[in-house]
């Protein structure tokens, strides 16, 4: 079966320039899933979502159905949409937000119906100016169309949706930090327990936080049925997933592929997908699931794109970002760039993350600049151990949220896979790939 044979679940409308408009959405079967859902009982909708094993598409891969089932019964509860996609080289939700906002809105209303929640918040990354504009317009148009608001499609069910822009903090993608931010506070992740906002969330009320892509699957699940969705993929990893492919490939971009049935090799090399590495260069390493994920080498390129399969191999599908590094890549510089990102985006709450990220960044930069010491490798690993004891996978934490324990992933991967390259920097007193821009 060719890698492109699977149906396109969340990207079916992208061929149209006006895919974001209500007219186009309605002309392509829009809001039919919602009508079907409203004809069912909320429990039946929840049951379908639970049955299809819709794994969260935000990063942790927690099953949406189970998350929903944990929602504490209370007079007031909320649905929050996490549209704060900010991980480096992750841009799949960005596409859905800008190009198919009605699909998201429809998914939100279906979820609200299933959960019997009457207020939803769509939290959109502050930098997504166009996305914010389009989601706002879509929500307004959906109100006009009767798909949001009072008595949706005459069903008696009502939902209000509030669109809220973030203010440019990566940490606000962490669901409890996002909730704090929504409440108007500084985006500090909350201490756990309580482990899930489903018990105590927004304004202290039970809250479900779902990712944009996760919810965008719901209209299709409703119109095509749970069985059609479950037929795709394998094991727990059902349906399709969006992958943001970046780095040294001929055709970087967002691809929707069937889970498990597709491999990293397909994604990187298939002519209709990544199209291979440019200039005939060799694959050196790739990051399978965003900046927080441990790296893979060429020997793992045949792994299937399945959550459990990648997990068992020591990394994660994470945020759906695959970054390809060819043999011209300096891994020290790559690790430094990723660490610098985490340093700049650490909320500063916990000591290990706040101080450790900056220290690690300084050491990596020192090595890249040619002034590192051989002992720095052990130092990097030891500081990493203070952020994620054992520096193993899945990581242990010394911090409130997983940002801190994510920092060592790239550093430990780079050192374990390319120790000699680090030592070469130290021995030569310079980067073997030539001084690069520090920007």
């Amino acid at each position: 079966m060719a890698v492109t044979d699977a149906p396109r679940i969340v990207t079916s409308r992208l061929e149209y320039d006006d895919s974001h408009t209500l007219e186009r959405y309605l002309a392509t079967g829009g809001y039919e899933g919602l009508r079907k859902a409203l004809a069912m009982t909320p429990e039946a909708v929840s049951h379908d979502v639970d049955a299809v094993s819709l794994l969260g598409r935000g990063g942790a891969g927690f099953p949406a159905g189970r998350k929903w089932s944990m929602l504490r019964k209370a007079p007031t509860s909320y649905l929050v949409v996490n549209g704060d996609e900010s991980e480096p080289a992750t841009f799949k939700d960005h596409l859905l937000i800008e190009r198919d906002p009605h699909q998201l809105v429809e998914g939100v209303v279906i979820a609200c119906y299933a959960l019997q929640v009457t207020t939803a918040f769509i939290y959109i990354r502050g930098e997504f100016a166009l996305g914010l504009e389009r989601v706002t317009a879509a929500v307004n148009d959906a109100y006009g169309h009767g798909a949001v608001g009072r008595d949706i499609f005459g069903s008696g069910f009502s939902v209000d949706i509030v669109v809220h822009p973030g203010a440019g903090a990566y940490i606000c993608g962490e669901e409890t930090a996002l909730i704090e931010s929504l409440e108007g506070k500084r985006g500090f992740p909350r201490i756990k327990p309580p482990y899930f906002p489903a018990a105590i969330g927004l304004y202290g009320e039970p809250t479900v936080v779902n990712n944009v892509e996760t919810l965008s699957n719901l209209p299709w699940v409703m119109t095509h049925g749970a069985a059609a969705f479950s037929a795709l993929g394998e094991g727990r990893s059902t349906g399709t997933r969006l992958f943001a492919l970046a780095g040294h490939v001929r055709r970087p971009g967002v691809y929707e592929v069937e889970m498990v049935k597709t491999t990293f090799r397909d994604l990187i090399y298939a002519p209709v997908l990544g199209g291979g590495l440019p200039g005939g260069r060799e694959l050196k390493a790739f990051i399978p699931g965003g900046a927080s994920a441990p790296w893979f080498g060429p020997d793992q390129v045949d792994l299937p794109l399945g959550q459990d399969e990648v997990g068992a191999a020591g990394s994660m599908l994470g945020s759906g970002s695959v970054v390809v590094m060819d043999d011209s890549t300096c891994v020290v510089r790559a690790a430094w760039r990723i660490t610098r990102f985490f340093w700049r985006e650490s909320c500063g709450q916990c000591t290990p993350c706040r101080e450790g990220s900056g220290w690690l960044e300084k050491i990596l930069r020192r090595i890249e600049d040619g002034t590192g010491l051989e002992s720095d490798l052990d130092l990097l690993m030891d500081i990493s151990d203070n952020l994620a004891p054992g520096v193993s996978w899945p990581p242990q934490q010394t911090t409130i949220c997983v940002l801190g324990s994510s920092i060592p992933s790239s550093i430990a991967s780079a050192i374990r896979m390319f120790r000699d390259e680090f030592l070469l920097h130290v021995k030569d007193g310079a980067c073997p790939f030539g001084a690069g821009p520090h920007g």
Partner: protein
Amino acid sequence: MADPVVTSHHAIAPHTAAGATVEITVDGRAVTAGAGEFLIAAAERAGTFIPRFCYHPRMKPVGMCRMCLVEVSGPRGATLQPACYVAVADGMEVVTTSDKVKKAQDGVLELLLVNHPLDCPVCDKGGECPLQDQVLAYGPGESRFLEEKRHWAKPIAISELVLLDRERCIQCGRCVRFANEVAGEAQIDFLGRGDLVEVNVFGGEAFSSYFSGNTVQICPVGALTASPYRFTARPWDLDQVESTCTLCAFGCRAAVQSSANRITRLLGMDSDPVNQSWLCDKGRFASEAVNAGTRLTEPLIRRNGVLETASWGEALALVAGRLSEVRTEKGAGAIGMIGGARLSNEDAYAWAKWAKGVVGTDSVDAQIGDGLPAEVVVSLPRATIDEACAARCLVTLAGDLREELPVLFLRLRGAAVDHDLAVVELTPQSGSLTRYTAASVAYRPGEAATVVRALAAGGPCPATVDPSVWAAAAAALGRAGDGGEGVVVIIGRPSLAEDGALVADAAAAMAEAWPSARFLPALRRGNVMGAIDMGLAPGLLPGRVSLDDGRAWFEEQWGAVPEARGRDAAGILDGLADGTMAALVMVGADPLSDFPDRTLAAGGIEAADFVVAVDGFLSSSAAQADVVLPSSMSYERSGTTTNIEGRVTRLSQKLVAPGQCWPDWMIASDLAARLGGDLAVASVTEIWDEIERVAVSHTGISRSVLDAPAARDGIVAPLAAAPVSLSRRLSPEPFDPMATPGIESVEIQGAPPRAGTAEPPTGEEPITAAGGAGLGAAHSGAAQSGPAQSGAAVRPRPLRWPQPVAVPAVPATDSYSLRLVAGRRLYDGGVLVGACASLTPLVAPAVVRAHAHDLEKLGVGDGDHVRLRSGRGDIVVAVAEDGSLPRGVASIDFNLSAAGATGNGSTAAGAGEGGVSALIDARQAVVDVRMETP
């Protein structure tokens, strides 16, 4: 209405079933912990100190510093968990000394020092620094950090009192949390990200909280320092005693530290029923007044119109001689005494015995026209502070508590935010507590009792009150029982321009409507409650008994008591002015600044034949005296003090008073002898023994009871019955080594983990007042134990409610006048603030606030000046619009200066000159003023 700022999902301690316990293991030892208790607290009570920075037992945990990581067993094996917010669970196994824990502790401390400047030799915190101590005890010993550290401009003044050094900051968030969570003023917060996170104020805004000093005290490093203490001492050179702050009547316990006979600083002690470790900035920093160079150090005698230094012998002889003359010529009733609220209980008792037992005058008043009728205060059924915080419905009829009794405000705010305390506020103007109330019922000065009667009767909403507010107030009161069970009323003086008898009338209405209600007096002046208890009020004798009830008893104890009820402060000043009285003794009193009616105060002092001032400072009033006697002040005397709930706590002497200052009791004793009497006391402890013997409200509170370790929080008088049950303390000791000051705590937090050395929780610790070994003298016992003395007189009973309240008539206002409200500010023109260089810049000028409607009629707005004219005088002040005030009301805070005073006949210079006291007429129930363009 819940506080919109604080919606944290975490409580200070998780909800626990009362008394339920769980069994856990800490380092192999079996430990019993309270169900739901935080691990850090449970381990500590069991004797295992887990190092920490951000944890504070009085604030919600945040788990930010990660210093308290310990290994906790769980479904996935032992993992590192923060002990500060993980609750204990049955069977939990905790390891605090494993290699993994040690590695985490090493790691956190090394990381904390990565950007820390290590400028300990020049840092005020050096020597008492939790970072220093814990690095020594738990840290790795050396750093592997080679790069340049983070730099910030330093220090920056974030207020007049607090300086911030961001390089030293370890981002524990204690200050941020205190400001937001405890004080409700989020004026200091985190900015930035990563290791560039800083604590700071918001652009250009000052850290103006009245509680800012607490952030300095709880800062675990030298990031926040207080300008008055900065660079004045090293912690190891300080000596300290535990005492009580007497700046207001709330009675905060404090560690008083000194060096070279100068107060260096005050640190709040954790007294669970009172201040729970916090202090207000006035209490904390006004202590420097005792160091002031302007203190009186020698007696002064007026010669040819000028005060000149004199010997004690000369001065006392002159005072005794002149008072004798007055007594001979006009009778003892011609001598009046004002003041006493700045004294200890023992000093107050000595003066009361002097005035009522020796001189023979009952015209004695510790309240300076700014309080409530003393009979009402002592007879209303009293609530404790804890009872107020736990009330089913709290009613306040008082001034702005943040201005008057700041830490009471903190307690009530905390109860409203965290424990759903329903507050119904009755006030002529909104204040700091308003946003935390269930209903804030506005009344026009003079109409409080009318509103109360309507509210208590479930009557219709008065026309002046918003119906939704009225309904909310009724709903809040509905939480209480029909007889007022669970109602606590805080009564104070909402306005000094409204007769205190009107408040008493409203209190009487509440006591009648809710017979089970209890009352907490919000009298603010130092030891005013103790002074009243000791009889420094007209018509009262020590022990809260009336002159008539106590006559036989005290004639037996003292030899004599006055024939008839005397006058209060207003009456004394009136009597002096009209010549029916002739001599005035001012004991730590400054009526020119503090009496609401400055014209009357000035007229009375001016007209008096003889005025003697006993004071620490030459106040504006003392400067008018014929003789000035220098007395000891707070921290220079030992004894006891009494707070608003009647709690008696120990005052400890830390300093030797400067120059020739005498303690008040000694002055009274000497003057008694010169007047042919004998106070028959030779020391402070003897006085307390006598108080315990003769003052029936204090029976059983012997020195040995007060000295018992379990009585560190004091004893509430009167004792209900023997044996005495003392309140249980939070833990064996109130334990936050960074909040609980003292050398001892430094040793504790610097020590390596200890095992099994601490005592188990003490719980209720009964003290037997009668018959207990070594506790109380033989005569001790409950008040009802009857006459135990050799004499014939029966011990009187303390006054009981109801007491008659003389209610003055309130005139109708005319549509051209504004009814005056005079509230209070924490930093005012009083003599103590004036003696503190660090506080005087915080005193605001007087402004008149009024509703825009009333300002528009005159065509004036913010910043314009107006002339206010009453029947008493007129002043010119700036205007500020205040939409929270009802129409027809003008509000000016008391004892603040403004330009252009021309009070009728006032010639004395004083701090409050030109302020609202020039407008107030003490003979009027309310004050109406006209506003004019100047």
